[in-house]
């Protein structure tokens, strides 16, 4: 559809301007981290006798290098990711179908939701003694705790998402002749997907929080074990902070992966509803036909 060039058309030298802007956008968050490291280092070097309160940044970098050299880095990271994967995947497999069923059959949901609501605010760490009683000290206990930590938020997200599906969409699906399994696949599932992805992202964050704590008690590998072991074995606080940095970096990476799912166009609608019906106003030309906004 032909339409006049927008008034705020890009400047003739739009390309370099845009790329330098994206460079700035990438540098600003990094500069915050750089300043933090600088302040950290300067404070410790000025601190004199109190400089043992925290290892210097360079010592942490050296500790990470040491871990990598001895092969511990990969071993601990893999051990933690392994537990998170199993606990989290099990929670997804159990929690999402359970939540969908509870959301769909409102009576059942009303009976079971209070149980979930009571269990949810209990920190998964409170289950550690119970887990050890049931599964002993070891991987299964850690995986179980991660499973519990992710299960309740996932189930409740799925349940509430299904309850929130618009009646018109369900009715439209039924009108086109869909019965339960097809309705689930072609209407309910795509309708709840945006919320589901947010729930998946948040519960993966919880799983990653919980694994560290679980590893401090139940097992002898993983980043949580690395931290507690470095302190117990020889007050190696450079290794403690190295473990913390690794946890943070991997946490961001996991979150970024989950966030990238939100950018798919088939779910993007779910995140823009609050921004209102902007195209309705701006996108209609005089003939009543609308133009797609860029």
């Amino acid at each position, binding site marked *: 559809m032909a339409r006049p060039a927008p008034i705020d058309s890009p400047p003739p030298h739009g390309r370099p301007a845009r790329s330098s802007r994206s460079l700035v956008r990438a540098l600003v968050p990094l500069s915050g981290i750089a300043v933090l490291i600088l302040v950290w280092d300067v404070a410790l070097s000025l601190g004199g006798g109190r400089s043992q309160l925290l290892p210097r940044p360079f010592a942490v970098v050296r500790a990470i290098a040491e871990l990598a050299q001895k092969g511990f880095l990969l071993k601990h990271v893999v051990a933690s990711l392994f537990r998170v994967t199993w606990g989290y995947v099990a929670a997804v497999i159990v929690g999402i179908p359970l939540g969908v069923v509870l959301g769909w059959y409102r009576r059942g949901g009303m009976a079971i939701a209070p149980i979930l609501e009571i269990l949810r605010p209990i920190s998964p760490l409170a289950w550690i003694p119970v887990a050890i009683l049931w599964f002993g000290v070891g991987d299964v206990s850690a995986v179980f705790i991660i499973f519990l930590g992710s299960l309740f938020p996932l189930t409740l997200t799925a349940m509430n998402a299904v309850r929130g599906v*618009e009646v018109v969409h369900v*009715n439209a699906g039924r*009108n086109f002749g869909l019965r339960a399994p097809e309705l689930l696949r072609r209407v309910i599932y795509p309708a709840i997907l945006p919320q589901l992805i947010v729930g998946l992202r948040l519960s993966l964050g919880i799983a990653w929080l919980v694994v560290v704590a679980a590893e401090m008690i139940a097992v002898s590998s993983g980043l949580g074990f690395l931290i507690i072991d470095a302190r117990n074995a020889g007050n190696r606080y450079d290794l403690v902070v190295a473990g913390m940095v690794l946890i943070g970096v991997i946490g961001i990476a996991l979150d970024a992966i989950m966030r990238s799912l939100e950018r798919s166009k088939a779910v993007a*609608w779910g995140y823009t509803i609050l921004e209102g019906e902007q195209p309705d106003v701006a*996108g209609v030309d*005089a003939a*009543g036909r609308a133009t797609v906004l860029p």
Partner: protein
Amino acid sequence: MTGNAEVKVHIQDLSKAFHTNGHEIRVLEHIDLDVREGELVCILGPSGCGKSTLLNIVGGFLPASSGDVAIDGLPVRRPDPRRIFVFQERGVFPWLTVEGNIGFGISGLPATERAARIAHYVRLVGLEGFENAYPQELSGGMKQRVEVARALAVNPDVLYLDEPFGALDSITRLVMRSELLRIWQTERKTILFVTHDIEESCQLADRIVVLSARPGSIRRVVEVDLPHPRDLSSPRYLALRDSILEEIGLAHRI
């Protein structure tokens, strides 16, 4: 409209009441109506008169409290792909593109036939170039056209339209009305059209069924023998409009 066409939708002594907190709210009372094949009937009434409820019962989404609805002589028990309900533009699936929406009801067809049908209805509602757009990128009028196209693509006998243009601005609404008439004349569907807009019913309908306020019952059925396209300033059109205004008891001046 030929007066002796076959009866498509047969509504007999239909009543509906809702029960909330021990109270009974009577919504519809003793509705009798026959809609002929290929006819465009507007159901006109004030807000809350039960006209949407009537359409939902006829569509098979709600059970009646008493009375019968039959289509082609068979009682209606559930929604059916031969009779598609067009909601306001809210009924479009936001997770599907224009193409995905229009092809929603014909997923059982072979791919090439399905693509051809989608292309046909994209053209019919004037959405060429927007096949891969998502509903959130479209205006209200375009979403409404997607819904109409999605309904037509399954080649239904009957269309139920529940205030389909209510949420649109007045210019788009006029455009959509003439598009609906154009589509109705090419595709020859039976259409039940619910509206609270007197002008809209006078512009579109073969017959106008005027409902009373709640509990809704039929006050009058007006045959409209004006040919399309209708001249909105002709004395006959104005007389028709005024007689319905009077029927509803509204003043002519504001």
